[in-house]
């Protein structure tokens, strides 16, 4: 693979150029100290923060928390009008876990037929990721095989070599950018490549968490008895849905009609979560899932078992965000540790 070098001084000038081709979204630290993916309007006033993990992933940019699918009116029949909302966007500074999550969403949203709303935005997105040379507090992407650096999936991947960025392209769109803005890049030397390799190695050994994802998956596949874990974690779950909302790969949604007046309304798609009892409760009140003891069963089994069977990899990308957000400590790291602490047993 051919690498290139971008001097750090040239980062903002390059981004300024890229922004002419569409909206530019990057992690920006706001005045309250929170880092969020934000559209850049003004390079002088918005501080691109490449040191901290963005609080939320890029999920909402492709799959918004709430989006209108159609507006409708039922005066003469029941007329639906699609709502259009998408623009070319360059995403800069997303991390490997976030990118892996997008690749996962690509699969989920093309199950039976491609989801038009998702792919409209996805098609218009350029993804420029930044490998994590210093993993954050709750990260375990090395254990979930989604980082800290990726081999594929990005348009461009940046690696921070200290004084400059090492830049590589995986997809045609990335190659095009390198070519179009070649004035900013110089070909990487062999030494640069060695330095890059060194950074990757060091990153791999600097994780603060060791989470044996594979071991847990093996145990889950063997169908061990998890009832005690479900009970304990379900009674700690406070039903806020924060884990699903913050999770870059939680894609469950609901569709509801929001009336505007008697005859008009909007059909909305909104995020939903399998931890909510209303998620499975049927009209009339019967609920096929016992939420008192199993509120979080689906969440963990879906990510670590069902998706492994279906897609060959867990859908947890090891970003650690659920660890930070949960009120009750019902997070992926705790779950995996609990599973791994259970005595091994023969399959039921």
């Amino acid at each position: 693979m051919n690498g290139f070098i971008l001097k750090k001084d040239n980062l903002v000038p390059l981004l300024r150029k890229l922004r002419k081709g569409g909206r530019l979204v990057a992690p920006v630290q706001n005045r309250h100290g929170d880092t969020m993916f934000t559209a850049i309007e003004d390079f002088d006033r918005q501080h691109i923060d490449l040191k901290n993990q963005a609080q939320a992933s890029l999920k909402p940019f492709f799959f918004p928390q709430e989006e209108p699918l159609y507006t409708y009116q039922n005066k003469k029949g029941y007329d639906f009008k699609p709502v259009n909302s998408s623009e070319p966007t360059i995403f800069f500074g997303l991390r490997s876990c976030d990118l892996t999550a997008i690749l996962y969403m690509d699969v989920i949203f093309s199950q039976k037929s491609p989801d038009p709303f998702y792919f409209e935005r996805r098609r218009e997105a350029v993804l420029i990721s930044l490998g994590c040379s210093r993993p954050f507090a709750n990260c375990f992407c090395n254990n979930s095989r989604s980082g800290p650096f990726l081999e594929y999936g990005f348009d461009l991947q940046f690696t921070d070599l200290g004084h400059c960025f090492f830049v590589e392209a995986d997809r045609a769109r990335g190659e095009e950018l390198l070519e179009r803005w070649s004035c900013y890049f110089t070909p990487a030397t062999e030494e640069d490549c060695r330095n890059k390799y060194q950074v990757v190695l060091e990153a791999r050994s600097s994780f603060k968490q060791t989470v044996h994802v594979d071991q847990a998956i093996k145990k889950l596949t063997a169908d061990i008895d998890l009832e005690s874990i479900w009970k304990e974690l379900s009674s700690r779950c406070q039903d806020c849905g924060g884990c699903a909302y913050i999770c870059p790969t939680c894609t469950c949604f609901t569709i509801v009609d929001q009336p505007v007046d008697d005859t008009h309304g909007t059909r909305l798609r909104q995020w939903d979560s399998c931890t909510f009892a209303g998620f499975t409760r049927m009209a009339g009140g019967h609920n096929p899932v016992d939420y008192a003891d199993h509120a979080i069963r689906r969440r963990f089994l879906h990510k670590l078992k069902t998706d492994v069977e279906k897609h060959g990899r867990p859908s947890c990308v090891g970003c650690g965000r659920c660890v930070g957000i949960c009120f009750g400590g019902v997070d992926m790291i705790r779950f995996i540790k609990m599973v791994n602490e259970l005595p091994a047993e023969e399959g039921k």
Partner: protein
Amino acid sequence: MSRDIYLPQMARIEKIIPENPQIKTFVLCFVDEDFNSSFSYEPGQFMMVSVPHCGEAPISFSSTPTRPGNIELSVRLAGKLTGAMHELRLGDLVGLRGPFGTPFTMDKLSDRNLLFVAGGIGLAPLRGVINYCLDKGGYGKITLLYGSRAPDDIAFSADIKLWQKKGIDCQLSVDTAAEGWNGHVGVVTTLLAGLEIENPKSSLLCGPPIMIKFCLPELSKMGFTDKEIITTMERHMKCGIGVCGHCYLDNKLVCVDGPVFDLAQLKAH
């Protein structure tokens, strides 16, 4: 790329058949005539039904594709959307998306003796299957066990009369009898005792979870293998195409992997 996967087609209510105080059957025709004439589906599949301001809900076909031209959906009054549907009149429009779901594998059932066990609204999807069998022919002896709460709750009585005329063994049961009821009293599973179905055979079940639960051991005792016990499930659903997640059942999604499952499939997770 088509934006249509969530876009309902308008359909007009041609006829409303009150089946019992809680269940109405809606006979529907798509407004777009070309669409209507090319529309096809299979027994066991379902449609996502839209009513303005109420969103969508999955409803199984209670009609058979052997009688094209219109479709029938039988709706039990249960929540907001079904409540709104029950308010609709002839000529009103509803939105429909579909068909969705894995159907009954009708050709694998041919030449077999078929035992249908239904409770309440559970007869709706099986009604389509029974009529399909009658129309197509080539199936073995058909037996129907149908349970209702009370005599007034017995739905699809017109169909049942017709089926009896056509030689289907229809046995009805009610949980609690009322005056004038001479038939069987007890949960529908009690009808299974003493029933003998000759091989090759399959049973098709649909009803409340508690009915299914009590049927399964009985059917096994009667010699039905897991693959010969087929049920269709009802779940809360939003998309119908395996994305939204609401209808999960262990590692499956009822909307695409089902709603029709045989017991062997349900046991494998």
